[in-house]
């Protein structure tokens, strides 16, 4: 491609777009001033009703003021260097002395591309939970942060990563960061107009503000998106200039296209970050494409390398013939499972022949329905009733390796209903192989009941085994398969959904810097708020004061919490239902906790309702949007509700874990920080 020619072409047209943007802003305000003047003149019966009047100018001035304030607040939001912003979006800094080979490679690529672009090296950050391939740069001046998703450093070849990083360097060189930030600020100002309209309420003036704000935001978005699309082409051309490797750029885009992620990012900032990202999902219809921040991937590939499609097809064909017989991902994971069965079992036999034999006898004993064969004897069976004891021990013996762990996971999701279970096992046999399905069936028969009594323990154990032994992409395949399988059964139950979510989190948490994310990240940003809440620690205050205390600490937050009342009600009632007994005191707990969030009464919900799982998902999303202090408080409320009846069932524990994982909050240990539960609580553990 002629990247120099492409660059100058794009640059000219993006100047026109910028001009249009500012013309639109001034034009709209003049229009407002003028139309208000006309109305004003007509009302006051002036003869020359086309002249500007002071009131018109005043209104226009007020508009400018509102836009200015909006800009200012948006600026407060995005100001500060790239490091702060990257941290806010949940990215983790890649240190020079990192151990991970992928991160080292990323650092090297960053240094190379900075040299090619003749700019100082930006700091490098990774978003550890993001599977989609993406990258963006934030910041300005000396503090620019290059943020790359985990998926990108995981799935891209070195040269492709170079191209992606080069694209971001192109954005830096061309000064897109500053322009984007400014446009973002102006858009924030427009949004302030609509907000002013909302505050003014359902009257004439309010609706004028809303309409004008809406038009402004719409035109602003339209122009900004058109601008942004041009700049993407420009940055692609820059990347090719830096790498002199158009094939790699096209290949990176092709890989993203084939990756087929449902979203360009998984985190909740994806809308906010869309304009900054390396790519966004292709939009289907014409109108959405006009508002899209990025051109279609195919168009970008075509601009770089018109013959990519042919080359790509040839490459894939050779790849396939090299692979030989294996076709499709299903087979790959099946093969993988097979390998692990062979190797891990062999390892186990070599290192612990005794254990393996013992496991064998236990399996037979359990199949005979004779629990006495178990070395722990009948006494531990009683512990098993309480949940925590025997399952763990037995897990370690019965599920010694990764392959068995996999089978255990599948067994956990097997249905109670005979017909459905058969269907489920058949589809496992179809997706993997018959021996594996047999293994699942046997585990289900022998341990299924135990598994279902304490799914949390099974998940923890199995995911720790799988994390060590199975490749990340295969783990992802496993999850995809599981999701597919569970859709075969009617509607997922709350428990299945919880297990799946936890499994996803635990299996994907392979990134070495995991713990750092939890401790820094957005918690740090909200630290002050969090401390404020902590000072009125909910559990140390007698129950009667909690309402007032939390109202006081959350102060001005109450109107916002009102909007998530129904979501909180839903989650809490699920939790109460899990405790098993729905008596008056439980209901009393529910009312008391709900009072600190919302004044209106939210009826109790049940897990047997239709579509409860999807409602739960939306509830999580709504709560995710709240600051971390609110989420933390909610989890603490939950744990308080759980321990208030002096008994923690497995389901309660499972749901609490799910809530805290889904809301990105540290999980409190039930019973430890609950002073009110007393000694009976301790006895139960």
């Amino acid at each position: 491609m002629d990247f120099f020619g492409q660059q100058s072409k794009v640059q000219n047209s993006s100047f026109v777009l910028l001009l249009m943007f500012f013309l639109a802003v001034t034009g709209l305000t003049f229009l407002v001033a003028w139309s208000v003047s006309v109305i004003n003149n007509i009302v006051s019966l002036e003869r020359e009703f086309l002249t500007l009047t002071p009131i018109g100018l005043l209104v226009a001035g007020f508009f400018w003021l509102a836009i200015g304030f909006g800009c200012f607040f948006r600026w407060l939001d995005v100001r500060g260097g790239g490091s702060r912003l990257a941290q806010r979006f949940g990215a983790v800094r890649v240190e020079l002395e990192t151990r991970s080979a992928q991160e080292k490679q990323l650092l090297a690529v960053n240094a190379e591309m900075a040299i090619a672009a003749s700019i100082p090296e930006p700091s490098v950050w990774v978003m550890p939970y993001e599977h989609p391939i993406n990258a963006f740069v934030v910041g300005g001046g000396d503090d620019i942060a290059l943020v790359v998703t985990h998926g990108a450093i995981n799935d891209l070849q070195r040269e492709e990563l170079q191209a992606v990083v080069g694209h971001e360097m192109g954005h830096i060189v061309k000064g897109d960061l500053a322009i984007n930030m400014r446009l973002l600020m102006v858009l924030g100002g427009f949004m302030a107009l609509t907000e002013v309209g909302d505050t003014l309420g359902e009257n004439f003036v309010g609706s004028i503000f809303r309409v004008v704000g809406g038009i402004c935001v719409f035109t602003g978005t339209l122009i900004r998106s058109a601008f942004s699309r041009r700049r993407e082409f420009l940055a692609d051309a820059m990347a090719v200039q830096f790498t002199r490797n158009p094939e790699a750029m096209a290949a990176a885009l092709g890989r993203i296209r084939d990756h087929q992620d449902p979203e360009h990012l998984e985190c909740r900032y994806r809308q906010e970050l869309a304009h900054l990202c390396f790519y966004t999902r292709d939009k289907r219809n014409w109108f959405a494409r006009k508002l899209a921040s990025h051109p279609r991937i195919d168009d970008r590939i075509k601009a770089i390398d018109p013959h990519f499609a042919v080359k790509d097809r040839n490459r894939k064909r050779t790849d396939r013939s090299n692979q030989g017989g294996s076709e499709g991902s299903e087979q790959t994971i099946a093969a993988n499972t097979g390998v692990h069965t062979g190797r891990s079992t062999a390892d186990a036999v070599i290192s612990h022949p005794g254990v393996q034999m013992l496991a064998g006898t236990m399996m037979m004993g359990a199949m005979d329905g004779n629990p006495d064969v178990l070395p722990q004897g009948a006494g531990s069976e009683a512990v098993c009733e309480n949940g925590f004891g025997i399952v763990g021990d037995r897990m370690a013996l019965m599920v010694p390796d990764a392959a068995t762990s996999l089978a255990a996971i599948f067994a956990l999701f097997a249905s109670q209903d005979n017909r459905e279970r058969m269907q489920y096992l058949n589809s496992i046999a179809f997706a993997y192989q018959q021996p594996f399905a047999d293994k699942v069936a046997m585990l289900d028969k022998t341990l299924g009941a135990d598994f279902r009594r304490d799914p949390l323990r099974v998940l923890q154990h199995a995911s720790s085994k799988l994390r060590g032994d199975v490749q990340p992409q295969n783990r992802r395949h496993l999850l995809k398969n599981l999701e597919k399988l569970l859709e075969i059964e009617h509607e997922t139950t709350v428990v299945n959904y919880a297990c799946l979510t936890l499994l996803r989190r635990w299996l994907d948490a392979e990134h070495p810097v995991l713990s750092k994310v939890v401790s820094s990240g957005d918690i740090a940003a909200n630290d002050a708020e969090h401390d404020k809440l902590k000072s009125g620690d909910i559990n140390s205050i007698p129950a009667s004061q909690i309402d007032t205390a939390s109202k006081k600490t959350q102060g001005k937050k109450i109107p916002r919490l009102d909007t998530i009342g129904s979501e909180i009600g839903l989650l809490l009632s699920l939790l109460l239902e899990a405790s098993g007994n729905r008596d008056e005191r439980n209901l009393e707990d529910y009312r008391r906790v709900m009072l600190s969030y919302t004044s209106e009464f939210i009826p109790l919900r049940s897990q047997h309702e239709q579509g409860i799982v999807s409602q739960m998902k939306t509830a999580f999303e709504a709560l995710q949007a709240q600051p971390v202090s609110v989420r933390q408080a909610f989890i603490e409320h939950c744990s308080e509700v759980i321990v208030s009846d002096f008994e923690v069932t497995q389901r309660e524990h499972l749901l609490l874990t799910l809530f805290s994982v889904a809301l990105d909050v540290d999980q409190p240990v039930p019973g430890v920080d609950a002073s009110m539960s007393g000694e009976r609580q301790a006895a139960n553990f």
Partner: protein
Amino acid sequence: MSTGLIILFVLLAVIAYVVVVYNKLVSLRNRFKNSFSQIDVQLQRRYELIPNLVEVAKGYMKHEHETLTKVTVARNNASECAKAAAAQPESAGLVNALAGAEKGLMNAMGRFNVVMEAYPDLKADQNMQDLHAELTSTDNRVAFSRQAYSDSVMRYNTYREQFPANLIAGSFNFSEGDLFELQEEEARETMRVSFA
């Protein structure tokens, strides 16, 4: 009065334009000079890596003393040449000497790589692997800095030769920037250093 004023304005505009073009030429020239020094920085980086490599290899290659000595000598030679060339980037002779020394170093490294094939333990050594990754990246950086240099020279030359900047460049003695004429073949070879 009006004619004089107009002439004055035109004169001012012309002067302003000349100043702008002159400044742009200066900044472009400095930019490409800076990218030349970047090449040197990256070359030095590689020269610093090679002794480490030799040090690690010594532990494994007891009987290849000659090969290692050759690498060290070639490296020292190239390093000297690079220093001399960096002091006087205009001198074609010094740049040519650097190119020759680089070639010698490449040959020695190539020999070293061939010998290393016989030492699987060395290839598996963690330090060696780290150094290998580092060296690959450094080679890339050398290539990229050369590329950035020629890009910036091209940008400067294009601007310098375009009308009306060429008039100003001519009268203020902005000479043409030299492209770094190290054959592309050799640069490619540099990138292919591999221990795999």
